[in-house]
């Protein structure tokens, strides 16, 4: 493993270069995300939309990696420090999986065993009526 002492003393010119490189990467990733977002607006297919959303999430994680790794300098720290920060965050993998699965499961169970509620959520309403209804305490 490389030592942080060496990494910290790499010359200043290359440090500035690295900052601008990471800035460019972050900007490009953001622009790709936005292009995907705009593209998604015109798409009806639910599974295709889900695929685009998945790609956006992957780009989001890539951006997080560049911010934490380079801007917050974690990539140049000692392995000990990297591990003490990153390993606890791995709990998020299960945290996210379990809760999203739970939410989806709850929806399916409710739709199956509470047909009244399901019918209620399928009634189309008009926008204007809705605005009045939803703010009874309006100014």
């Amino acid at each position, binding site marked *: *493993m490389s*030592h*942080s*002492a060496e990494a*910290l003393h790499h010359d*200043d010119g290359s*440090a*500035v270069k690295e*900052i601008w490189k990471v*800035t460019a990467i*972050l*900007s490009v990733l*953001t622009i790709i*995300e*936005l292009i*995907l*977002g*705009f593209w998604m*607006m015109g798409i009806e297919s639910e599974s295709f939309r889900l695929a685009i*959303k998945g790609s*956006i*999430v992957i780009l*989001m994680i890539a*951006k*997080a990696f560049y*911010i*934490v790794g380079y*801007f*917050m300098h974690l990539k140049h*720290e*000692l392995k*000990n*420090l990297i591990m*003490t*920060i990153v390993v606890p*965050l791995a709990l*998020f993998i299960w*945290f*996210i999986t379990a*809760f*999203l699965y739970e*939410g*989806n499961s*709850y*929806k399916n169970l*409710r*739709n199956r065993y509470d047909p009244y509620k*399901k019918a*209620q*959520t*399928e*009634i*189309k*309403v008009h*926008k204007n009526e*809705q*605005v009045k209804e*939803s*703010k009874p305490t*309006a100014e």
Partner: protein
Amino acid sequence: MSTVTATAAPTKLWGGGKSPFDVEYGKLMMWYFLMSDAFTFGAFLISYGTIRFSSNGWPNPNEVFRSFPFAPEGVHAPLVFVSIMTFILIISSVTMVLAVLAGKQMDKKAVVRNLILTIIGGIAFLSCQAWEWNHLHSEGAWWGANPFLNADGTQSSTNFTNYFFTITGFHGFHVFSGVVINIIMLIMTLMDKFEKRGHYLMIEKAGLYWHFVDLVWVFVFTCFYLI
């Protein structure tokens, strides 16, 4: 010091007499604080995701967030305003990392310049958010009030606005405290506090906090506006 050369071998890191993480105490604690803060934000966002997954319908963000300051009525510009906010935060993160670098080089002038730019970026972001909140409020959206319909035209619940205002509000509060911390850092720099100490480590810790704020926005932006 002879101990410095002794720690060159990784196996000696835990030998005592020196931080095994090779960082200053305050910086390590800032990392641990940010980790705990990440779990707080994570809990908020995962709760939002759980509720969204358990709902039959959800408002379309492109229908909700489509306004732009000074644009005439009827002009719909989804994603445009929020992408400007995102770039403001990225750029202010870049100026912060330049300030940290200047601090390492003991270049006071560059630290001051980049800190001022970072503070301006933070204030610009907060102003954008204030405008957006104000606009949504004028449309009837607030905690407990949701004027927007679900994407499929069905009745929506107030979950959407509750989560939106809570999470962007919590993030905005972090941006606000980050701006306050940066202003304190600027004053301390101008008073030559760090010159007297001989190092700009405080700027690094403030920088970590500021980058974390940017990091959280990456997730908030994706979860609320894009998908």
